[in-house]
């Protein structure tokens, strides 16, 4: 009984499926909401950087050297290219091809590890300390913000990969893989403006 009211049965839901993919899935909306939160965080950090940049006559201030282009270029290239296997992975998820999904996740994990390696060297070549001046602080803020997303994404991918290889895979897990892949795309997209802001805007100014 629902309270004191008489019920009138007008339909039955038993025939509905018990899972769904993409935007039909409830979890997809949670994932997209967290992207909105973090995207806002990125946008505000970029806004803060632009604000400080606009306040100071020189960016970087005289005496600071520009961040190195080598390792960052390699990182950026690798990151952007990683979208190709990522798109392939999403297609395999839609096709529900378990073996290829497992393989795709393994590849993405390895790519993630490689990217962390590149990022490590990239951070060595920022050529400014975070405590040196506001320019240094801003650069490091943007880098730390993005690196933390790469690390989080890598851990999630790695854990999911291990799980996929050791367990029976159901539709819910395919949904998880898709959310994970979507998130990877988000991490790539977030890097583009940060890369320009950290490495190229100071050179163009």
């Amino acid at each position: 009984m629902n309270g004191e009211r008489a019920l009138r049965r007008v339909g039955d839901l038993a025939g509905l499926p018990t899972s769904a993919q993409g935007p039909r899935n409830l979890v997809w909306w949670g994932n997209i909401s967290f992207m909105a939160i973090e995207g806002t965080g990125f946008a505000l950090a970029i806004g803060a950087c632009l604000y400080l940049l606009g306040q100071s006559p020189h960016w970087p201030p005289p005496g600071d050297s520009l961040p190195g282009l080598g390792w960052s270029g390699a990182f950026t290239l690798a990151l952007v290219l990683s979208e190709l296997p990522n798109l392939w992975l999403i297609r395999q998820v839609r096709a529900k091809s378990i073996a290829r999904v497992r393989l795709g996740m393994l590849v993405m994990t390895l790519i993630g590890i490689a990217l962390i390696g590149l990022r490590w060297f990239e951070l060595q070549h920022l050529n400014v300390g975070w405590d040196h001046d506001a320019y240094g602080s801003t650069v490091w803020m943007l880098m730390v913000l993005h690196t933390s997303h790469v690390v989080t994404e890598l851990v999630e991918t790695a854990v999911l990969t291990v799980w996929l290889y050791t367990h029976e895979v159901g539709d819910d897990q395919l949904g998880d893989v898709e959310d994970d892949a979507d998130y990877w795309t988000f991490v790539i997209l977030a890097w583009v403006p940060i890369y320009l802001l950290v490495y190229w805007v100071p050179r163009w100014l």
Partner: protein
Amino acid sequence: MSPDERERLHAVWADRPGLLGFLGTVDHKRIAARYIVTVVGLLFLSGMLAIDMRLQLSQPDMRRMGPQQYNEAFALHGSTMLFLISVPVMEAMALWLVPLMLGARNMAFPRLAAFSYWLYLGGVLMLWLPHALGITPDLGWFEYPPLSGPAYSPGHRADIWAQMITFTEVAALAASVNVVATILKMRPPGMTLARMPFFLWAMLVASLMTIFALPAIMLATSMLIADRLVSTQFFAPAAGGDVLLFQHMFWFFGHPEVYIIFVPAVGFVSSIVETFSRRTLFGHVPMVLSILAIGVLAFGLWVHHMFAVGLPRLGNDFYTAASMAIALPAGLQMFCWIATMWSGRPRFATPLLWVIGFIATFVIGGLSGVMTASAPLDLQLTDTYFVVAHLHYVLIGGALFPLFGAFCYWYPKATGRMMSERWGVVAFILIVGGFNLGFFPMHVLGLEGMPRRIYTYGPDMGWGTLNLVATIGSAIAMLGGIVLTGNALISLWRGKPAGADPWGAPTLEWAARSPPPQHNFEEVPVVTSIAPLWRHGDLPVMTGLATDRREVLVTSVIDAVPQYRHHSVGPSLWPFVAALATSGMFVASIFTPWAVVWGAIPIGVALVLWFWPRRPRSATGPLARR
């Protein structure tokens, strides 16, 4: 549903008994109730701080408190009211009401709801435990650098404040994501967006605003902590930083926050007006448009908190006009509510009294808001008692009065008992009367030059009489608050049994039992009207949700067409553990930056275990168990 099935359904949704059940519950009603109890306790503490401060100010040159105690009192009062009460209590109301109003069995992400509460509790302890130990933040509810920076705020007081915010904002963001997903994807069949009750619109808008506003404060306080902990230079002008950056980011959050608190209150008022006027809300569409307009406009106004910092005058004119513009949607809402009463048959029970008190009080706050929105006039008003009066009219008159109304309105649903109407009226008169007596004189005090946040003033300033009146008024309002709480507590066992629908209300939550069972509804209600319970005497339902496992119905975003039956996760200790691990990291990060690195590991482990899917071992692939 057969008795057998019913029993199975109960068993599936029941919590485990004992401590583990307590810690692991994912029942949205239980979680929301914890929020409410915590908030009521904090309201009491925060009110006592207010009374303490009012006594100190009641006459010139009082020596009850020294500057340090007073500064701690207003910092603690403001931070608690804004971060630990106003925003969380609105989330709590959403957590409790949204699934019930949707005819759903639980929130979209039940464990996330539990995590929200535990982390919020961490934030409460983060502020109040150090206070008990004598380490209280003492710089107000917004702590501008450089006063809050490493050089002028030695020690950990400012860190505690900043991390308390991180705690509560993470909790609030998690709750908002939950509410958004639930409202968008778990509406019952037939509840298209056009038929969605206004309250749900309000909660949807408030949650979306939360998602876009709160990252700003988290970023601002994180930068502040970085300045204090690892010597970054964001707010050090001598190293190219800028102290105003903090103010911009704080108010980019701070202004929408006011509406994040107010918009749910608009939802409460609309629900109450509708039920007690015995007609659906007049102007449903304009009302929805008006809160959407508020939601958008609120993000464009933050600079009106900063008129006195010396920004370019052109910007001042723009922000003046934009800030005043928000009076239009708010004014239209007023019209719609009064028009609903005008054209209905109002029954003046306590919830509706609160609405009337709300309108009469909040409009004053709105109009004083128009005054402070004017850049040149604001130069006289900002940082004075005029603003203190304004913000209390807006937050207490505009959000707490509707909340008290909502409390009286949904109390019978939550407890199964009615509150005493007589004592309800007494509390109403004491609170509304005392509040207006206490806070209206502050407008005049501000105009007479009394700045805010001063712990004392000289006898020659001539502010004594009005301050004494303000103190008396606040004490009366506090007394009313105690009557209200006492009424609620006593009614728990002395109140008349309420039945499912004591007010004859139109929305779905009144179709559930009072108090609702853990799974809320046995069958899925079907909605054919904006006022489903007024449309039919009986309730159209759909059967077929599982009774042997936790299942909720997921529908399409616009038209609420059933899409699939979603497995809803059960009780788990991991949200609690994850919140504990997160709290540990936040607390430790005050002392060393390495906490962020090492503290992430237990959090990661807790999250992995939280989300670990339980399925059989693999029979295929290279690692298969053969």
